[in-house]
């Protein structure tokens, strides 16, 4: 572990109580060869400037708290190895959501879109004595979209969402997809009705930024296309 990695870290800083405009904080740090961007941010916060504000929880790519724009693309800071992005690493808050402080954004507009697609299981039929059975094939149908951790990497990489926050966004469509194609769920028609609005799936211009941004490697654009197809064939 003698080897070290010299990193020039550029972090977009903004404190609404002090700053009129966001500014770039520049920090030179020496990190280990297996350290991640999150470790470098921790180093800055713990040893250089304690006011640096960021969200992170599990630090292992599953809670989805530390989505940020790293060298221009949305990534989870805990999943990006410094050696893959060194020597100059630029870190910004994700775009399209209001910045609260430094790397922390207000997730409420994103969560409001998420809630708007009924992201919960709906089935009013009395439950059978044991579980509601599903074949492996039926489960496989929506397996990909169950992986979403709501980190917002996809929605905040989407040019349609940047231009128009009313667009429901890729993450909400992924969540809707997870229930629309679940054989046990009974509210697919209602969800499709919601996504048939002009600011539903039709605002998607097939840019593929979402698919490239997803830290869970969900085929998001494909999932959106499947929802479009389901709408098409249910309305024609």
């Amino acid at each position, binding site marked *: 572990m003698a080897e070290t990695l010299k990193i020039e870290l550029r972090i977009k800083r903004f404190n609404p109580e002090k700053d009129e405009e966001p500014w770039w904080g520049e920090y030179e740090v020496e990190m280990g060869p297996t350290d991640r961007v999150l470790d470098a941010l921790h180093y800055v916060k713990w040893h250089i400037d304690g006011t640096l504000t960021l969200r992170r929880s599990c630090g292992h790519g599953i809670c989805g708290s530390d989505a940020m724009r790293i060298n221009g693309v949305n990534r989870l800071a805990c999943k990006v190895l410094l050696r893959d992005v060194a020597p100059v690493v630029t870190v910004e808050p994700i775009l399209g959501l209001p910045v609260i402080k430094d790397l922390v954004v207000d997730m*409420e507009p994103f969560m*409001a879109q998420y809630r*708007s697609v009924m992201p919960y299981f709906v089935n009013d039929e009395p439950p059978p004595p044991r579980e509601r059975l599903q074949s492996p094939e039926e489960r496989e149908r929506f397996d990909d979209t169950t992986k979403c951790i709501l980190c917002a990497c996809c929605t905040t990489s989407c040019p349609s969402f940047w231009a128009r926050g*009313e667009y*429901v966004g890729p993450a909400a469509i992924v969540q809707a997809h997870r229930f629309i194609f679940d054989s046990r769920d009974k509210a697919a028609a209602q969800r499709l009705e919601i996504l048939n609005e002009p600011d539903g799936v039709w605002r998607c211009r097939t840019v593929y930024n979402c698919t490239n941004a997803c830290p869970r490697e969900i085929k998001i654009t494909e999932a959106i296309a499947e929802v479009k197809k389901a709408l098409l064939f249910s309305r024609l």
Partner: protein
Amino acid sequence: MFEALTSVRTAEQRMERSSNFELFAWLFMRVSGIILLVIALGHLFYMHFVVGVTNIDFALIAERWENPFWRIYDTFLLFFAFTHGTNGMRYIIDDYFRGGVRVTLKLLLYLLYFALMVMGTYVIVTFRV
């Protein structure tokens, strides 16, 4: 929770809600895209390689439109290319503009579309040497 839910979409959008217009616009873009791949590239190939750009003049078009096939071909080209392009412009306006500007730009776009479609169709249908 419900406050946030309703704040997401405006009343105007909820009115548009039950319409399938955007669905058909999306489908039209796909279908016309495939059609244009054939007829627009066909047009380009014919005019540039078979005829040659330097040879295009009034007499050539007059001769070409003697044949009803080319009149129908050009009508299709006019309709599909222009409608496809106009809908693309509508997408851009819907994405990037709001309120009065959005309405005004769309109105201008539709007026332009209508005027040029009528003019183009009129020329193709009534052309006589």
